[in-house]
């Protein structure tokens, strides 16, 4: 993907509309009263008490339950499907497969789904083979067991590193390369290496990581005449709507997608699933609502992953710490379909540090494994894993503090966008310096060196910088705010709240501008039937995209309110302000007017403001920046690693809500620790290609005991007045981008052994320690 495509991965395949310019100029907030405070989630009670209705909770009258039969082989042809026994089982209302005679439903597919609903050529374990709908989920699953499928099992390719071997099985007829190589070059890399005092070269690898959201993928579909409503666990209702409409040949106006509450996505819920289309088809055939909720195992097999990456870096540096050249060649696999394997895998190599001579090359390969999907900062945590470990190795080679080396190479302009535009803001240097200072980086390093290596219990500290290709947000977005005559407010917006606290932040913005309590703002959102278009919540851009639109709508309501009030109060509108839910004129500050006392408002009943997201500044780059610091304790005899501390210093612009910001940062660190320490997909590659750890026990999502004992969050706000009208940038993805690399560098600092392959678990660390001993 090109850079602009990286920033837009969350609308892949979606026609994005244009919205109008915001109505008027908005000045940056000189100070804020609500925004930036630690405000608990406005829907916290609903989420915690269980009254929030997630798609998996929905129960409709007469609702049926669907389930999918999935191919148990990494690669097989389906030669026959016998559903006769399943069809006759109690409660079964319908069965579909590729062999359902003359059923147009079985051919339903779309460019969004990419393959047929039931493709008899199954290129990965977990591909859909048949589906059942029944009165209960138990009957549906029982019926799946009664479907007899004949498979012609074929050879498989599990490891992309073997994709080009002469005898490698060809996943697709046109070969194992997915897409052509993505090449990028600036300057003269060879000249850069010639100029360097030290040149190092190393290979790194990260493993496949699963999204593992708390709520598995699923939906409920229900028809009313020719209109369809789908409740989907999704990051973006407007991504689901066109996929369903296209698959079923329906007008968009008749497909309503609702996504109020959802239990996490991390990028795996940006698209409709085959289950979505099947639920709609079954609902139509049976004239009943149909729910399909996938099992954890199904989500691990079929709903995406962070692809593995193989990265070779050659880097040149001068003794004073100036980077002279970076050469970066990486491969990855997006599984059996899709070209997403190497997505954004080189962005940080190209952008994170100043370097005049850079060459990158990316190549994706097909494998017989579940397709990848964007996952929290696609490509970036893999890229930091390699780049930031290399920077540490360079720092050691020239005997320089790793912080100083990074500070020496801080970019102030985009090195990849034509014309090298400056960033609207960059707090990268402050992330490193203030983070190091709060972490007591230099003191800790000295303490560790003074302790020596006598004990087999060793400590180490590590740092990683980072940035994120997207995170600036942008149009389109349209928000509508309605102020009632009693002073209560409704905010209507298309965006989803995927658990990050979007609703809360938007309520805070309304509260900031209209002087109401955030908890008194009722929010209608994420519903194609009642809201305006919003792009999906992905790319760490929901807050910087939606906040300016919501602020604009609030300002428009305030403008109308003040106009009416000024007339009644016989003052100039410019003298009015809002204080404690009342209107006050600077000409008569002792006579505040309640909203309800404004006759003009009472007569109108409501005031409605529409806000649009304005364009981003021309000729500027908008990116969040970060640095994370980690301290570990390693037992050199048993390979046990304890993560003592993680400190995260992030420049994501203005902190909109101190509480949800911290939660995002800590959640991102936990997910990064997962990539670096505990998680990986294990395929039985040599024998069957089947996934071996397809459940929460074997897969190794970290527990609270596995993440850091102490977290610290150090927000760096450079006071960005150019990025957008609220001055914020995204935090969700940046929070996980440097984590695994900082951890790896800390382990190196403790052990003196460089573990280049993630995760650094017992197996990999003890093997690396043993190899280094043999090397001695």
């Amino acid at each position, binding site marked *: 993907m090109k850079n602009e495509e990286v920033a837009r991965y969350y609308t892949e395949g979606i026609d994005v509309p244009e919205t109008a310019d915001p109505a008027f100029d908005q000045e940056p907030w000189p100070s804020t009263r609500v925004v930036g405070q630690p405000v608990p989630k406005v829907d916290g009670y609903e989420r915690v008490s269980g009254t929030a209705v997630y798609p998996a909770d929905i129960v409709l009258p007469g609702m049926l339950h669907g389930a999918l039969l999935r191919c148990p082989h990494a690669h097989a042809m389906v030669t026959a499907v016998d559903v006769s026994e399943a069809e006759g089982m109690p409660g079964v209302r319908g069965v579909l497969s590729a062999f359902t005679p003359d059923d147009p439903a079985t051919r339903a597919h779309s460019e969004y789904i990419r393959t047929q609903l039931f493709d008899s050529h199954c290129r990965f374990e977990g591909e859909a083979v048949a589906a059942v709908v029944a009165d209960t989920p138990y009957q549906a699953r029982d019926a799946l067991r009664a479907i007899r499928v004949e498979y012609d099992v074929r050879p498989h390719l599990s490891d992309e590193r073997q994709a080009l071997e002469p005898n490698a099985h060809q996943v697709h007829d046109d070969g194992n390369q997915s897409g052509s190589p993505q090449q990028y070059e600036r300057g003269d890399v060879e000249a850069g290496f010639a100029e360097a005092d030290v040149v190092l070269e190393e290979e790194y690898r990260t493993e496949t990581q699963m999204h593992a959201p708390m709520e598995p993928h699923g939906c409920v579909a229900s028809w009313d005449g020719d209109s369809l409503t789908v409740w989907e666990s999704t990051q973006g209702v407007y991504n689901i709507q066109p996929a369903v409409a296209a698959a079923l040949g329906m007008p968009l106006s008749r497909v309503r997608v609702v996504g109020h509450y959802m239990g996490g996505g991390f990028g795996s819920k940006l698209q409709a699933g085959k289950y979505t289309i099947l639920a709609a088809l079954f609902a139509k055939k049976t004239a009943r609502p149909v729910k399909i909720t996938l099992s954890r195992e199904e989500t691990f097999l079929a709903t995406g992953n962070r692809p593995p990456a193989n990265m070779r870096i050659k880097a040149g540096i001068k003794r004073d710490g100036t980077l002279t050249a970076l050469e970066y060649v990486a491969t990855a696999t997006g599984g059996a379909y899709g070209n997403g394997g190497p997505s954004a895998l080189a962005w940080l190599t190209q952008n994170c540090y100043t370097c005049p001579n850079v060459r990158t090359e990316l190549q994706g390969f097909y494998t017989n494994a579940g397709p990848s999907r964007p996952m929290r900062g696609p490509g970036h945590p893999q890229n930091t894993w390699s780049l930031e470990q290399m920077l540490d190795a360079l720092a050691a080679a020239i005997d320089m503090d790793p912080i100083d080396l990074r500070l020496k190479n801080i970019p102030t302009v985009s090195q990849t966008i034509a014309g090298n535009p400056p960033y609207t803001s960059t707090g990268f240097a402050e992330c490193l310096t203030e983070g190091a200072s709060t972490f007591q980086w230099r003191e800790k390093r000295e303490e560790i060196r003074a302790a020596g290596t006598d004990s*087999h219990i060793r400590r180490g500290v590590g740092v990683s910088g980072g940035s994120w290709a997207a995170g600036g947000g942008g149009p389109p977005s349209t928000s509508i705010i309605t102020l009632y005559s009693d002073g209560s407010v409704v905010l209507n917006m298309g965006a989803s709240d995927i658990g990050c606290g979007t609703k809360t932040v938007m309520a805070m913005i309304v509260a900031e501008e209209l002087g109401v309590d955030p908890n008194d703002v009722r929010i209608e959102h994420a519903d194609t039937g009642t809201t305006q278009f919003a792009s999906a919540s992905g790319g760490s851009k929901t807050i910087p995209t939606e906040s300016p639109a919501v602020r604009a709508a609030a300002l428009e309501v305030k403008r109308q309110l003040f106009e009416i009030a000024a007339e009644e109060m016989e003052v100039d509108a410019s003298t009015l302000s809002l204080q404690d839910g009342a209107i006050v004129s600077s000409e008569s500050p002792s006579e505040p007017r309640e909203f309800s006392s404004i006759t003009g408002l009472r007569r109108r009943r409501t005031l409605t403001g529409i806000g649009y997201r304005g364009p981003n500044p021309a000729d500027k780059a908008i990116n969040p920046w970060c640095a994370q610091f980690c301290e570990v304790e390693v037992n050199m005899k048993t390979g046990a690693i304890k993560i003592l501390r993680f400190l995260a210093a992030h420049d994501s612009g203005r902190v909109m809500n101190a509480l949800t910001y911290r939660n995002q940062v800590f959640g991102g660190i936990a997910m990064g620790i997962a990539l670096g320490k505990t998680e990986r997909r294990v395929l039985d590659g040599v024998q069957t290609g089947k996934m071996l750890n397809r459940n929460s026990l074997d897969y190794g999502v970290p527990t609270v*005991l596995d993440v850091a004992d102490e977290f610290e969050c150090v927000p760096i706000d450079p006071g960005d007045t150019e990025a957008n009208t609220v001055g914020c940038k995204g935090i969700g993805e940046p929070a996980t981008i440097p984590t695994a690399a900082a951890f790896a560098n800390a382990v190196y600092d403790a052990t003196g052994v460089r573990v280049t392959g993630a995760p650094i678990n017992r197996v990999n660390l003890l*093997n690396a320690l043993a190899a280094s001993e043999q090397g001695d």
Partner: protein
Amino acid sequence: MLPKFAYVRASTVEEAAQNLAADGARVHAGGSDLLGCLRDGVFETPLIVSLSGISSLQGISRARNGGLSIGSMTKVAEVAADANVTEMYPGLAQAAGVVASPQLRNQGTIGGNLCQKPRCWYYRGEFNCRRKGGSTCYAMVGENEYHCIFGGALCYIVHPSDTAPMLTALGATLNIAGPRGTRSVSLEEFYVLPADDVMRENVLEQGEFVTEVMIPEPASGLRTSYRKERDRGAWDFALAGVALAIHFDGDRVADANVVLSGAAPVPWRSREAEQAIEGREITAAVAAEAADAAMANARPLGKNRYKVQLFKGLIEEELLAIGLS
């Protein structure tokens, strides 16, 4: 989601035994392992017999011989928290306390923990492996990071229990009931190596079940400990574990029981480690020597050689710690 089965909740040991005599009938204790096996299709069963209605199988009491009697339906969490266990055999409290997660310890029973099925991901997955009657052990050439380094042949599982190695080290005996009456088997003779019978993990015959765990009175000078190394801090099985029950005569080891978990298809008694410390004070050198001796005959597979180093470090640290305790 679960295959069909009939369900009986027995109210006496005899009633349970009679019902369990039916071919393929399975015991339901806490259910945390049974339901997982059924859901994952590891096996099917026509009849599940619950022991939850048999009150005599519950609880921990002092035995007449001065030891402790633990009813097989006692929750793992109760064993971990029991005052007598903590005082008499702290290693057993430690072992019970590191089983799985708090939720599973509250649900799982000591009998179930001793009789649980292996966690090998081929056995649990859609693979017709040797232990399920097939002709292949997929772990032999496949992903065997978590498999055994001792006692493997035909099948390379590790025994998943944390309490079994500790109870083996303590010389515990199991009381067993079945359709043909009751019997007692020492824990050391309870488990079956795959070379002897690849399709069973223990000596229980159809219809038999554990009713009671009998632990002998701790002799004076007994020190016990259990430590488990795992990839996650909770809810994970042992990569390596070591149970120690050592009788000290002053500073010297009079008699040692060293039993490893995560090492073999059964709780693995390391006579090599025991011999290396018996009659000696556990100095740093002795501990390291014993750890080396324990691993001298290890036979790692393609991907679990790291376990040798891990066990060495673990055994060395634990022997030193118990010597100083």
